[in-house]
């Protein structure tokens, strides 16, 4: 044990070597989703808002493109599902800030609940878009 003191300690952290528990995966994907929203979903929402309120023709153009282009409808649905994911994991974090479900066990369970609810939501959205 005392030999530990002489061992060369790592200067840099290898983030890939850290095994993440489910609650940490929930936390880091919340952050990644946040980046995606700020740089992609938000401008996309502004693009949609601008053209859908510009004129009736532009509204119909957006609407038709959504119905016809698989790429466009997938991109839009995915972007807003990422937003929904950020909100769901965000609610979990807000509850934990209020000291609700803070224990290790509760944190694990709520992570799985959030993943499950989001998957269910994704299934509903994609079935509406594709079917």
């Amino acid at each position, binding site marked *: 044990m005392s030999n530990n003191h002489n061992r060369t300690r790592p200067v*840099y952290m290898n983030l890939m070597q850290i095994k993440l528990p489910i609650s940490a995966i929930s936390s880091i994907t919340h952050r990644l989703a946040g*980046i995606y929203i*700020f740089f992609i979903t938000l401008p996309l929402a502004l693009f949609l*808002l601008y053209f*859908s309120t510009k004129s*009736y023709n532009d509204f119909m153009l957006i609407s038709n493109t959504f119905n016809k282009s698989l790429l466009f409808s997938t991109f839009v649905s995915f972007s807003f599902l990422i937003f929904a994911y950020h909100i769901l994991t965000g609610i979990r974090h*807000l509850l934990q800030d209020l000291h609700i479900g803070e224990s290790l066990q509760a944190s694990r369970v709520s992570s799985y609940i959030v993943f499950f609810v989001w998957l269910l939501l994704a299934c509903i959205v994609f079935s509406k878009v594709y079917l």
Partner: protein
Amino acid sequence: MMGSTLFYAQRLTAVFLLGYSLWLLSFFILNQPLEYSIWVLFTDQMNFLILTSMIAIIITIHGFIGLWTIGTDYFTSRTLGFLSPAIAKYADVIRGLYSLLFTIWGILIIFFILLIIWS
């Protein structure tokens, strides 16, 4: 600025954004399939214009704190050094450029939200 101020600002803005998102979601659910006339009426009402203008500021504050936290957590010499020790030396420069990017992006977001809804 106090760390606790940033902590509470992040949570408070989150609650506002949650409320605003639920408001929009309820509109879309109640008005399916969405028609142009109803949509334009909704986006032209004072409630929408004032709330969305406030949200433009709130979303930028929320995004700024979140992205800044990510920057100080992951774009440091200790974490970037894992990719390459040569990059580690420029960690402060990389984090600075990253901060500059999302700051400019945030200002553009506020500008475009206000331009689109009020014009």
